[in-house]
Structure formats: structure tokens, C-alpha cells
């Protein structure tokens, strides 16, 4: 992943919890796939919900702050990915959700409150406005609106996303160190 260029879906609600992203009863699966149908399951039943609005579509979800609060269920991230989202833009994310996103290649983009408001406004004016997220330069921009802002991302995770590295592989490359650590602790404890 290097760059995402897409139209976006606005969901200007704060504190969206993981039970809204995907209710617990749909976690009864041993797979990661197929959860997209259940994304925002309750809200989607309303015809007026943004995912039912034909004007809005795309690979980027733009949401209110503290997105993904609540449970640690990674199913929330899998559901967003399975639905077709590749990035979520918000002013803040719940900690576990943020990590889960990075660990699955769903790019969480933290922007300022002001910039978030500007994106919401731009999407209101023109649902087809394109947003570009460039991971390399860590810049999110709305070319049509001449808006741009830099976002922060953990350099290690950035490397993982760009090169397709894997946490488990990285940890196992350090296995000698882990075993040595265990031995040292055992000696210390006697």
C-alpha cells in the first residue's frame, strides 16, 4: 500500500463503538471474510443511512472522533475491509481499534478537528469529491479543494504497510533474544 485515491463516505458521528461497527452476534465466525454485509448492521437498516445513499461510495470512510471505542474485536476492522474500505479518516481513534487497523492494512488516518470538518463540508458540497491519502509522504489531500494536511503514523507500521512486512515474522526473527530473555529471568528468579 502506498497511496489511496478514492471518493469517500462521510459518517459525522463521534464515539462510534465497535458494537455499532459490527454487533457481537456476528462475531460467531472462525473466518475473517464475509463480515462486510454486517458492517453497521443496525444503522444500515435505515434507508437514510449513508451506506444506503447512492451518492456516497468509495474506499475511504470519514468519521467523527474516538472511532472504534469499546471492544477489542478485530472483526470491526475485518468488516470495514470486507466491505471495501481501505482507510478511515478521523480526528481520533480508540487505541485498540487503531492498532487492529494497522495490523490488518486498514489505514487509520488521524487529522485535525479542523481538517476533518473541512472534509465533511467538502463531501457535503460534492459527494464525488476525491480524497488522496499518500502513505509515503504522510499527506492526505483533497485535490479539488486544494486542502491538504500531514498525518502521523508509526514509522514501523508504515514500513510494514509499504513493504508488506508481518509482525509475527518480525517477532520470530527475534526468537533468540526472546529465549535469552526467558533464560535470564529464570536465573534471576532462581
Amino acid at each position: 500500500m502506498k497511496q489511496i485515491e478514492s471518493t469517500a463516505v462521510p459518517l459525522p458521528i463521534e464515539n462510534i463503538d465497535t458494537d455499532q461497527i459490527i454487533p457481537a452476534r456476528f462475531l460467531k465466525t472462525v473466518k475473517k471474510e464475509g463480515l462486510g454485509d454486517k458492517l453497521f448492521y443496525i444503522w444500515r437498516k435505515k434507508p437514510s443511512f449513508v451506506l444506503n445513499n447512492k451518492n456516497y461510495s468509495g474506499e475511504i470512510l470519514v468519521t467523527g472522533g474516538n472511532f472504534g471505542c469499546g471492544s477489542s474485536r478485530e472483526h470491526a476492522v475485518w468488516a470495514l475491509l470486507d466491505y471495501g474500505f481501505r482507510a478511515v479518516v478521523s480526528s481520533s481513534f480508540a487505541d485498540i481499534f487503531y492498532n487492529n487497523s494497522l495490523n490488518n492494512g486498514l489505514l487509520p488516518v488521524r487529522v485535525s478537528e479542523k481538517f476533518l470538518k473541512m472534509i465533511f463540508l467538502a463531501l457535503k458540497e460534492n459527494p464525488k469529491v476525491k480524497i488522496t491519502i499518500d502513505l509515503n509522504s504522510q499527506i492526505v489531500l483533497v485535490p479539488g479543494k486544494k486542502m491538504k494536511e500531514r498525518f502521523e503514523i508509526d514509522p514501523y507500521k508504515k514500513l510494514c504497510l509499504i513493504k508488506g512486512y508481518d509482525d509475527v515474522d518480525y517477532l520470530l526473527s527475534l526468537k533468540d533474544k526472546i529465549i535469552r530473555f526467558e533464560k535470564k529471568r529464570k536465573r534471576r528468579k532462581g
Partner: protein
Amino acid sequence: MPRPKNILEKIWDSHRVFQKEGYPDVLYIDAHFIHEVTSPQAFDVLRKKHLKVLRPEKTFAVADHTVPTIDRKGPIKSAKSARLINALIKNCRDFGVKNFFPLGHPYNGIVHVIGPELGISQPGMTIVCGDSHTSTHGALGSLAFGIGTSEVAQVLSSQCVLQYRPKTMKLKIEGKIGRGVTAKDIVLYIISKMSTSGARGYFIEYAGTVIRSLSVEARMTIANMSIEAGARGGIISPDKKTFAFLKGKPFAPRGRDWGRAVNFWKALESDPEARYDKEINFDISGIEPMITYGTSPAMAVGISGRIPRAKDLEAGEERKALKRALKYMGFKEGEKMIGKKIDYIFIGSCTNSRLEDLLSASGIIKGRRVSPNVNVLVVPGSNKVKKEAEKLGVDRIFIKAGCQWRHPGCSACLAMNEDKIPTGKYCLSTSNRNFEGRQGPGARTILASPLTAAASAIKGEITDPREYL
């Protein structure tokens, strides 16, 4: 002299296997709890990569999230639950996880109840589980936090997890605990003041005289809901109460090891000069039993209070959230909470299903009948809790009063088994989350303490527990 450290720093530094600029720390994990919902996809990662579980003896597996709480004799009726539980059985067998407590095992129960009660969770340990309420174990002085399934795969394969050290917050609770006020009320009060994102990015250390005065079980209720304030976890420096709690537990150190362990545990306490990224003080004198009126744990008021009015809140998102929540709950601005009709009562969950919780609720219920209009579910946190409660006759108190006495599990807290609250119905629940649909599609959840739950069960409406004390 070495730099003074807080307990979080002490545990973190002693578990850091590897540190590299620009990379997360490699943090060694002492106890890894797994359950049926967030582990199957992690085992799949290991299978795909042809890996083993590095330290099966440090992995503890339990089925709790989807298990039935009524009939435990026959096969599990829900095919989906059965598939998850069977996957856990198979994964434990295939990967050599011997500390597995399936249904029927005397150690079975909610993962965050059994860890402490079996003495698996100990001060100074690093503990993770694919569940956000892992923070519960922090009440014993362990560094415990919830992780996602990708991280479960990290821990299974390497006994380590990649993490940046969170910022630390010292949250001091002082004051006099009022009548009818429990740990649940204290934590709901704190969350109502801090909001659900107030502690985001932080790990909380709870301190102060109030925490010291609470039992270890009550401390667990507080640590449990740290995540509801947005924190990664909550920790409490261990003390004599912690050591007394752990002594003699099946997995706790014994004999000569016990004395050595206690000495080590005593040294964990935060140094007096330790620094924190943030310090907050709460005075809980004068707070009432708390009750939630909305769809976030932060939407809580004192039980004799009223639902806030939109005009009293900041314009913008806060007002919108209130309106949305009240619409869902079927409540109106400015209404009183006392006297509102309740359809279901759920006494259970990793927040409030330990023996002390059941005893406090049964104290009010004893010799009374619950209202015929409410359906009261009492779900002990574990087989051990259930057995101990039955030894004390607590089950008979509940049953005689017209409550249902169930087998342990997560049950109606998140409605992944048959224990669901029907659409539009009100459930006064001792659990931790009142999100829309949490207890079933369209279910309306009101969070409160076991005391408030018991008092409300008798009247069939929201009731101040102090009426019965």
C-alpha cells in the same frame, strides 16, 4: 540512585525483551488468556505459517463468550456457538494448550473472573487477552490489557507482543464512600466525568485511600471499566489485601516460593517520587449510586438525578449524541431516572459477577419477591463462584425470590448466546456497556451496581438501593 518509577514502568521495563528506535517494544507476556471468539483466526495464522505455540504452558483457554447458561448437559444448541467452542477445543489439542477449561470444568467461567480467582493473574505479570476487559486483572497489580486477534497470533507464536509504552495517568480517588455506593458507582462516576475518551492513550494507575479501602473484588470492578474511559488498562499497586486474596489459590506460588513472591510483589508499588504523564484527583464524597440513561457508559447520573437537558450541554456533538441516545432509549430530557419501568435485570458479567457482587445483591433480595413484571437473570462469573454461592445458600435466596440462577458465562452482557434482551425492552444490567444493541438488537441497557439491580428487581422499576439498606 535509580530514577523513581511507577508500577507500570517497573513491570514494562522488566518485560521488555528488545527495544529499537522507531520500532515498538517487544514485550514479554507472562499469561495469555484466550477464548473462543477472538482466537480462531489467530490459530489460523499459525497454521498458515507452520508455527507452534511457543509457550503453551503460559496460555490459558476458556470458553465463555458464547456458552449457554441454562442447559449445559446436552450438546450446544446454537450451531455457530458450537463451531466456535469446538474450534477452541481442536486448537488447544492441536497446539498443546493444556490449561484449557471447557464447559463443565470446575475452573470454567468468564476469563476475567477465573484468571484472578485461580491465582493465574499475579502482581508484576504482563497479561493479555483478545478482550478489552482484560484490564480487570490489573486490580491485582499486573499489567493487563486487551489485544486484537492479530496480536493474539503474535503472542501465541512468540510469547511477545509489539507495543509502544502507553502514557501513564495517576488517578487518585479520595473521600468518603456514601451509603449504597459501590465500586461500580465510583467507576461510573469517574467515567461520567472523564468521558469515554478521557483516558485514551493512557494506562491508568488507580491510587488513593478509597482504592486501598476497597476489597480486591471491588478493585476488579474499577479496573474492569478502565477501557470505558478509553484507557488501555488500569492497574492498582498490590498490598496486603492482594496477597491475602491470592494465598492458596490453585495457580499461586506455594511454600518457600510464596514468601519469595510476596517480597517481589511488595517492591512493585510505585515509588513515592514516581512521575506520571497526567495526574487526576477525584473526591467521591457525596456521590450517589449511579445509573446510566444513555448509550454510552459516560452518560450516567446519580440515581436521584435527572437526565440532562440538551441546552445544558455544549452545542454540537454532545447535544446530538444526547438526543440520539435518548431517542434510542425512549427517554426524555430532564426526566427523573427513579421509577422508570424495567423489564429485565441482569446480574453478571466480568464487571459484577463475583461472589461479593452476588452476596450484596442477595442481601437486598433475601426474604423478598422480585416484581412479577421483571425477568431477573443471575449469572455467576464462574463455576467456582457458583459453587461457593450455593454453599452459602445464595442461589436459594435468588430462586425463592423469583430470579433465574444460571450457569456461568458472559451471557446477556453481549448477548452472544441465547440470553438476549428483546427489542425495545429495558434491562438494568450490572455489566459494563450500554451501547445500542449490545444486549440484543434494539435492547435498551441501563448500567448500575448489583445493589441497585437488586432493589430495582423488587419494585420492577429503577429504585434507589438505599431504600433497602
